[in-house]
């Protein structure tokens, strides 16, 4: 009999007790009661321990995410650096070009002849022939035989022209022969290109006193190059070889591997 109604009695008791607790709580809100305090005391350390564990795992996870983010950021910053580096290089290039063009302009102002400024568009460094291509041709007034100079000195002379381009034979080419004189001693000779080696100042009398380091300039003879243009400096001068002339080696004043802009001197009269 009792067992038959046990479920109903239990259900009734549980509902009644919970209702009593609820009504007490609603009547006197804020009073914690001993049971609540006990539950707090038992669960708080448990929760604290779990939270500490979760926090440490969460911390590690956040650090991992932070590192992943950092890696991404690092990659993006590297890209940015590369882009900025390229920009800096561009501006540096512009600045250098500006400096070079300033020099060219100064040179243009200092020459008595009309000039044609040109940009080097081809440089056959590996060829046995020492020539360069410039972006000015007959349309701009460039003609065969005209001298070409740079702020550092004589570059060479025009040997071929098209409408928009011209080929320049450099002073270092074996076929280049320019009337020259040593500035200090005034000794005259012909500067012949030496290809990849130093140029040679030929036909200088043994009686002439030529010193190392002296400047070699155009003599103006032959009418092709105006007088006084820088060709190079004496690197070696000796009289050991038998014969009438001494051996003089000259370092060109122009670094042909770095030449970018030149001036074509219009020495021919219209």
């Amino acid at each position, binding site marked *: 009999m009792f067992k038959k109604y*046990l*479920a109903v009695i*239990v*259900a009734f008791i*549980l*509902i009644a*007790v*919970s*209702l*009593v*607790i*609820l*009504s*007490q*709580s*609603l009547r006197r*809100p804020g009073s914690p*009661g001993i*049971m*609540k305090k006990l*539950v*707090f005391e*038992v*669960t708080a350390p*448990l*929760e604290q321990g*779990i*939270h500490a564990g*979760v926090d440490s795992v*969460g911390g590690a996870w956040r650090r991992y995410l932070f590192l992943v983010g950092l890696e991404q950021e690092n990659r993006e910053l590297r890209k940015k650096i590369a882009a900025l580096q390229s920009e800096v290089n561009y501006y540096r290039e512009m600045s250098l070009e500006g400096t070079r063009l300033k020099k060219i302009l100064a040179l243009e102002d200092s020459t008595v002849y009309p000039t044609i400024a040109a940009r080097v568009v081809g440089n056959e460094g590996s060829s046995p022939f020492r020539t360069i291509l410039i972006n000015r041709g007959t349309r701009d007034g460039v003609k065969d035989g005209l001298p070409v100079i740079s702020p550092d000195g004589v570059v060479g002379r025009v040997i071929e022209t098209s409408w928009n381009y011209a080929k320049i034979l450099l002073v270092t080419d074996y076929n280049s022969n320019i009337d020259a004189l040593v500035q200090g001693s005034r000794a005259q000779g012909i500067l012949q290109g030496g290809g990849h080696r130093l140029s040679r100042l030929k036909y200088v009398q043994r009686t002439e006193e030529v010193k190392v380091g002296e400047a070699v300039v155009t003599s103006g003879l032959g009418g092709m190059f105006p007088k006084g243009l820088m060709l190079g400096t004496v690197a070696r001068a000796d009289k050991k070889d038998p014969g009438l002339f001494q051996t003089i080696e000259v370092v060109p004043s122009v670094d042909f591997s770095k030449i970018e802009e030149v001036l074509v001197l219009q020495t021919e009269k219209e």
Partner: protein
Amino acid sequence: MAYYIVIPFFALLLVVLQRTLLDLVFGGRIGIEVSLILVVWAGFHLDMLRGGVLAFVLGFLLDCLSGTILGLTTFVYVVIFVLSSLLSPRIYGERMLFIMAYVFLCALLEGLFLFAVYWFVYDTDVSDSLLRTTLPQALVAGVLSPAVFTLFNRLGVDVYAGEAR
């Protein structure tokens, strides 16, 4: 007898886990009320005394730890358990869809009761919380209930086997 000694500790552990680890699943925004699913499960699988005590203890612990009104969850859990117990002889409570729908409704009932208490006793409208918290929480509980039921089925078998020994 061992059951009644173990049950408070088990309930305590479950409630603590629910409040800590499971709370992290949705970043603390939506809780996973495994305790409610357990109460429903108990309604279908345990007798009135065992299940009733379990529901009461679970509700009371939750009230102590997170509720502002002591007895509210206790009452709701006991009611849900009794309802489930009354339904269990009439309905086959192992069908997945039924479990999901029933747990969802029970979670809603809990939310509605909370809403009613606040409305009638404190004259406060907590419908915003009903929509933002109770509804998604009920959905999550409903979706998870079949898996939790399976887990408790296994645990329940183990407990009974332990008692039988």
